[in-house]
């Protein structure tokens, strides 16, 4: 039985694991956006803080993922449920691209536009929501896209600590020494990453300022 027939034959489980994978990636990306975008806005407006914030996010990125999972395992509440832990770890890894792109996107808005807006009497929040963010949204989305693609990959490792997802097929296939099982996890994961990359990329292009 070749890989595709195997996937079809086990499509219920493939679907289930894919949904689990989506949950890990989706929740963590959402959390990273909720934390990272406001943080990026703050450091874009107060450049004094940009070095420490970006440096911290950078340091987190350099920690090998399996090691980070291992560090977090003994933490109470977190370590009790490995999907919680995985979501936290994935969120941390998604922070750097999101914060950095938000910062770049907002700093990249034409200063003349910001000056005109402020001079016209727009409040800081009107300036942010009606001018800066809409103009920066394409760059910010690019950061989100990178974060999602990274997360889809990292989430496969999360299966090693029992968080479920498509990585479970991969590890199972390795234990069974069965290529079809490995690919039943790897192929959907790759497709997920490609679809996300393509989909968010499309949105980016549509939202690009003229």
């Amino acid at each position, binding site marked *: 039985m070749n890989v595709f027939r195997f996937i079809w034959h086990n499509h*219920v*489980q493939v679907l*289930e694991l894919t*949904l*689990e994978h*989506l*949950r890990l990636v*989706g*929740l963590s990306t*959402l959390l990273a956006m909720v934390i990272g975008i406001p943080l990026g806005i703050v450091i874009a407006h107060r450049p004094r803080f940009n070095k420490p914030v970006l440096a911290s996010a950078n340091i987190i990125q350099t920690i090998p993922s399996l090691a980070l999972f291992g560090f977090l395992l003994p933490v109470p509440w977190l370590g009790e*449920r*490995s*999907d919680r832990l995985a979501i936290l770890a994935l969120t941390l890894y998604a922070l750097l691209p999101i914060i950095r792109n938000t910062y770049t996107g907002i700093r990249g808005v034409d200063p003349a536009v910001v000056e005109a807006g402020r001079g016209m009497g727009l409040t800081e929040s009107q300036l942010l929501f009606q001018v800066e963010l809409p103009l920066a949204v394409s760059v910010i989305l690019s950061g989100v896209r990178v974060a999602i693609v990274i997360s889809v990959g990292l989430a496969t490792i999360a299966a*090693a*600590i*029992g*968080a*479920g997802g498509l990585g*479970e097929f991969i*590890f*199972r296939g390795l*234990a*069974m020494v069965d290529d079809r099982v490995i690919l039943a996890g790897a192929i959907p994961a790759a497709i997920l990453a490609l679809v996300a990359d393509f*989909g968010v990329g499309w*949105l980016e292009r*549509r*939202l690009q300022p003229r």
Partner: protein
Amino acid sequence: MTRLRSIVRVSALAALALLLASCAPSHPNRIVVGSKNFTESFLLGEIVAQQIEAHTNLKVERRFYLAGTYICQQAILSGRIDLYPEYTGTSLTAILKQTASGAKEDVYQRVKGEYESRFGLTLGPAFGFNDTFAMEIRGEDARRLNIKTLSQATAFTPKWRAGFGYEFMERPDGYRGLAATYGLHFAETPRIMDLGLLARALKDHQIDLAAGNTTDGLIPALDLFVLEDDRHYFPPYEAVPIMRVQTIQQHPEVAQTLAALSGKISDEEMRSLNYAVDGQHRDATEVVHEFLRRKGLVQ
């Protein structure tokens, strides 16, 4: 601009819907059976799965080869699996983090009580065998040296090399405690080896003592001898099904079906099942089906 806004709004809603759909792992008329990633575990998983399939209307989803106790625990806690086969001693030490001691009934009750109160999980009736650690030596050595127990073996171990699996070396209820209890010393530090290779290595004289399991299929096949744990160091490791209380409540027929398996698998029977798959390389599904038919559990 407004058309674009509606595109964005629709995509955001779609993403949210997908997220919510993936949030609650619920399988209405399916039972998901898990197992660990060694032969005995997925044989037990397959036995449970086929039994449920034969005697209820439920569909069974198999999620085998989960890599270890922690991962199985996570999976059953989060509802990704509904039940999986475990050992009482492992639950006690690895999950509940207590020291294992006592008779097997005590251990069973303690584990059941704690699981029910802490995790919303419960234990089904024991399958009937005790898969505890077996200190194996070659049959020829046992006969030649005329030793039957571990205490007797300690006289000879300083000249022996030992091979153990990773978990046995690291677990608190593993090598460390054993060495302390019996005053064991070996010629060199025990080698850590892949579980599947230990029996072969023993047979081929690469090592002289291996930590295996009492239900190892290769014990009779390779003429290996299990030294008696005369100081009762190893706690009981009765094989039991761990189940989600929620699953039992929704599908009481599952509990009934598992009750029919109570005590039906002896140590010898488990060994021969293991050997059929590991030694004779037969298909696990077939082996299980044959076993269940032979025991009159399925038609």
